[in-house]
């Protein structure tokens, strides 16, 4: 299975060392200021991730602010070095809900081998209803016009209400046969931890750009893929949380948008000179007032931060299973 292993080299993304941050393409302080302004100019519903995604008219009305945010805060996929893109394109993909005439982008996901794709468990819920995974399609960056079809959820949760998901449980492993695209990466590309000192990389699709452009699924949607190179895109620590819980929660201020849930959080191993997947991006830091949600999401409410989790051991174990 791992006969021709290749390491994932992060050639153009964001890297910093503990003592001396180094800008491998990280945006300039001036650009960071422009990003802050663009962010503060967004309507509050976008800033706080409480936008009604079914209200596309409202989204189109806010197109100028959203485009400014896109220009100053997010970087295009092409800004990564070619070798990095080459390494990630067979791993990173996105889920779409394709039905008569519509093609809703729902969430991000990533392959762990040729059989399984991981995303956030809440991506399989919509307004309290559980989405039939067979209705989704998964499209890889490397072959965007091909729709892979999930057949089942490998780790189904025995719940009738997505509010009951804890952060730790908020991941789903979908069985998606993707053997047509070989995935030859070493098992140490999947790790249970992420560093606090290095920049992270969270690839995603700018959902608003995708809508505003009315992109199609034949490959045009790739133009909406973004990465973040902001100076705040690294893991933060909080002291007011149980240390065992804190070890599993990933707090960052990377620029993320709706429909990026389930994205892999990439870190960089300086010793082995390789990138690895160490976490899953889940949600914005605000939790709302629902007491059940506030009780269940153990990483808590972190205004201004994103919340993710370190890569669960169950995922790493599955990644090690034969892909065929």
């Amino acid at each position, binding site marked *: 299975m791992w006969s021709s292993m290749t390491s994932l080299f992060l050639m153009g993304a964001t890297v910093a060392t503990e003592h001396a941050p180094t800008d491998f393409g990280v945006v300039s302080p001036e650009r960071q200021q422009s990003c802050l302004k663009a962010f503060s100019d967004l309507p509050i519903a976008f800033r706080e991730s409480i936008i009604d995604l079914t209200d596309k008219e409202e989204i189109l009305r806010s197109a100028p602010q959203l485009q400014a945010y896109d220009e100053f805060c997010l970087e295009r996929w092409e800004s990564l070095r070619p070798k990095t893109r080459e390494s990630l394109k067979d791993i990173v993909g996105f889920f779409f*809900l394709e039905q008569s005439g519509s093609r809703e982008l729902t969430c991000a996901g990533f392959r762990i081998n040729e059989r399984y794709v991981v995303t956030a468990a809440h991506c399989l819920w*919509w307004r309290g209803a559980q*989405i039939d995974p067979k209705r989704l399609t998964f499209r890889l960056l490397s072959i965007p016009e091909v729709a892979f079809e999930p057949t089942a959820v490998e780790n189904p949760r025995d719940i*009738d209400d997505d509010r*009951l998901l804890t952060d730790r449980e908020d991941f789903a492993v979908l069985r998606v046969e993707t053997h047509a695209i070989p995935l030859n990466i070493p098992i140490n590309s999947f790790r249970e931890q992420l560093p606090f000192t290095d920049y992270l990389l969270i690839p995603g699709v700018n959902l608003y750009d995708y809508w505003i452009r009315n992109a199609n699924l034949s490959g045009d949607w790739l133009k909406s893929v973004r990465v973040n190179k902001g100076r705040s895109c690294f893991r933060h620590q909080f002291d007011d949380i149980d240390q065992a819980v804190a070890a599993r929660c990933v707090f960052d201020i990377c620029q993320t948008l709706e429909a990026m849930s389930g994205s892999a959080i990439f870190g960089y191993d300086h010793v082995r000179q390789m990138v690895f997947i160490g976490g899953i991006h889940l949600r914005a830091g605000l939790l709302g007032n629902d007491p059940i949600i506030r009780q269940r999401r153990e990483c808590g409410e972190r205004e201004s931060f994103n919340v993710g989790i370190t890569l669960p051991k169950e995922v790493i174990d599955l990644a090690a299973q034969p892909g065929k």
Partner: protein
Amino acid sequence: MQTALRLAITITLANCCFGYCKADVTDSPRLSSVTRVLAGGREACLINPPTKPTETGLTILAPLLASLGSKAAEIGYDALSNYISETIKAQESSLTVAVKSAYFYRLKKGAEGKWGAEPALDCIVIARGRPGPIDVLGLRLFAQRMDPRSRFSKVDEKGERSFPILQTLGFSDFPDLYLEFAFERDPLDTVFRLQPRVIYYKQPSVKAAADGKLDLNLTVTISQPGLSTPSAVLPFRLAGVQAGADVPIDGVSIDNPWAPMLPPPDEKFANNERAKLFSSLPSTPSNVSITLEETGSASRYLVFLSRFLNASKSDINNSATELLNQLADKLVAKEAK
């Protein structure tokens, strides 16, 4: 007349929603208290959730008691209107009113693509307490006395207490009142009733009778949006509750008649294009109106209860109706003297 009463109820709900319609208060009123109501699946029972039923998705069938349920609920609601309007005026009662929204059923797609309906409303919690951040150190000092059965506190392996349920409720202190009910259904899922899981009654809102006991009278009215009459009215009475931390359920008199289940959705929904996207979805959105009366006087509620049961006579509750009628007549006569 009933229209006028319903109007009165509506105004009352508007004035008292999520709060009290308070009458004679205790010597140490806690006016800053708030009432929280949770209604939903098993998870809504924060302390003592019922075990997961083994029921599988039922084939969607017309409910056995649909016609009776509709009539009984309408007449029961009129009886409830009378009861509430009288209780509001009463000096010896405190009435709490709240409205929550929930789903009554959940539809699930089986392995062969056939849909079935399961009841989704499993629990109701009514809690009253003081809102605010928790003073963990202060609460730990009083936990042994105020929470002898560790309902609200959790002890970790180091022996330290935390208070996750109080955090969920947003209370700074142990609640004055915490009632947790599970919905119990008959084996055919045609009727349902309330069963208490936790009765914690630290601080009444009214002065207790000479023997220190009070009645807690609860009604749960379930209405479907767009329908002019409620779909189910569930009365529930805890008689002679002695205020003081945790009340043993076995030692309290409970009246909890059955009410017919709401009709499940018909099979046509499966033709809906959007429904095809899902493997499981909540169904039958319902508004759950709750009234809770704390009182030392039993008569009004018993009159309501007998009217309600009269309206929904069936083999299930004929004998109970007769007994309640007699009891209500006796109590009304006694109070009139």
